[in-house]
């Protein structure tokens, strides 16, 4: 398959491409950047990093604390009066840094990045579908692919945090089956490559994308459903941008469920009691894909009352870590801050639509000294919906 060429850009190109030179130094980005707020070692902000880039000081950009710790949550771009795409700039610059052998520090001993790299082996025969039970109907002839992403792997790596992991995948198939959709779950699906791309490892990303695209096209399916917002965003926007255009509809599960509700293809049982929950907007689903209403509509339809956090939708605070990189005290502060905001709503449960948000929040909850403040129950949207389905 002919892929798009990997042309190495210079810092100037990346500055121009992301409109970085239009920065007015107004500092709105610094006011919202969660890293700027919690990084106490030295003052660092998107504005100052941009300034270094415009001055042409590449080394200073690479050495900035924000360079590898940027969460790419896009809160800065959301407010920027000049539409500087700071996260796009960071993504581009990280690929330049990699050419100089500079890499971010993986907080999980590189396990996740390494298994993704192993997945670039073309003759790899993964054994990743053992979790499928008799209750989940799948078919290789389906026109809908369910892309499960790294869920089976996270289920093992994060088993100590009681993360929902494969229950999310089982629930997604249950929901689809209930609506008469028998999805195709691919035997040899690879990691979508999101973390590699945002970490600047464009070569690995392209290889993963090429292998995934070959599999997608060979199935003859028309649409792909994912339960991970990062997979959805990457397949929808970054595969055509960095690898190959392909003619398939990409949906996040919340979009599919909203569609199924509108078409009256799934029904919910009448709840005994309406639970009050609050919702965490995953960055890729919210600010990147603009999907704020679908997950909320789905939650309400499933019989939950929604209480909004102080910061929600475009202003939602990130779960605190991105690409499994540079997680430390700063990130724990952000997670604690968000969990406290969730607790302050008075809701009994925090619902999110992203496995990574759940992993990060559950990890922050390991801090026993803050148990009463941040101990809110955390659940995934997909599993909640599956539990509320009509029998």
């Amino acid at each position, binding site marked *: 398959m002919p892929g798009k060429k990997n042309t190495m850009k210079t810092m100037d190109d990346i500055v121009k491409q992301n409109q970085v030179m239009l920065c007015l130094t107004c500092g709105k980005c610094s006011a919202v950047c969660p890293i700027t707020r919690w990084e106490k070692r030295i003052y660092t902000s998107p504005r100052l990093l941009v300034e270094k880039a415009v001055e042409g000081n590449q080394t200073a950009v690479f050495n900035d604390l924000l360079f590898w710790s940027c969460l790419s949550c896009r809160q800065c771009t959301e407010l920027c009066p000049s539409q500087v795409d700071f996260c796009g700039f960071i993504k581009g610059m990280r690929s330049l840094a990699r050419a100089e052998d500079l890499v971010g520090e993986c907080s999980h001993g590189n396990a996740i990045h390494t298994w993704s790299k192993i997945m670039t082996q073309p003759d790899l025969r*993964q054994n990743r579908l053992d979790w499928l039970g008799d209750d989940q109907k799948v078919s290789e002839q389906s026109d809908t692919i369910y892309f499960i992403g790294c869920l089976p792997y996270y289920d093992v790596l994060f088993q100590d945090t009681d993360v929902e992991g494969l229950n999310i995948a089982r629930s997604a198939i249950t929901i689809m089956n209930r609506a008469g959709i028998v999805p195709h779950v691919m035997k040899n699906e690879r990691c979508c490559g999101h973390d590699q791309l945002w970490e600047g490892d464009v070569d690995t990303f392209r290889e993963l994308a090429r292998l995934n695209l070959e599999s997608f096209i060979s199935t003859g399916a028309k649409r792909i459903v994912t339960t991970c917002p990062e997979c959805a965003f990457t397949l929808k926007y970054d595969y055509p941008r960095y690898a190959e255009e392909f003619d398939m509809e990409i949906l996040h599960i919340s979009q599919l469920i909203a569609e199924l509700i509108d078409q009256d293809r799934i029904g919910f049982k009448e709840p005994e009691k309406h639970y009050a929950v609050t919702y965490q907007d995953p960055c890729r689903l919210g600010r990147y894909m603009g999907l704020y209403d679908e997950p909320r509509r789905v939650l309400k339809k499933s019989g939950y009352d929604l209480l909004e956090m102080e910061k929600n939708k475009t202003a939602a605070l990130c779960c605190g870590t991105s690409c499994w990189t540079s997680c430390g005290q700063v990130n724990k502060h952000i997670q604690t801050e968000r969990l406290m905001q969730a607790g302050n709503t008075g809701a009994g449960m925090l619902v999110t639509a992203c496995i990574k948000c759940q992993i990060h929040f559950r990890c922050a909850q390991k801090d026993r000294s803050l148990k009463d403040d941040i101990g809110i129950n955390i659940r995934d949207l997909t599993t909640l919906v599956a539990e509320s389905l009509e029998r």
Partner: protein
Amino acid sequence: METAGVEGISYDSRVIPIRLTCMGRISIGIILKAFEQGAMGVLMLGCPKDECQYDTGMHRAEEVMGKTKKILGLLGYSEDRIGLDCLEAGKGKAFADRVGEFMTRLTAGHPASRETTKATFARSG
């Protein structure tokens, strides 16, 4: 390993030793990295459980081993390709035997393979 060297005991030349200060330092990432770079198997040789200077070294290694086996299983690798064993300090012959046994187990199914086998072990004592 040093004792094996001093005593002139040879072991398979395809083995690449990687030293760790304690078996508790092993992580899933390190083991996966060996496989990513083409290793056929990873053998971890640490100190006997009750002789750990840091108390929990081998217990941690067992936890890591359990998770890594599952992840390797998902990636389609056989469980036999990873092993955890313990060895007292200064036993050159026993070291060569353990490595030899592991190599025989690995190469049993792949006689023609020329892949490298990596042996990761913690220095005892």
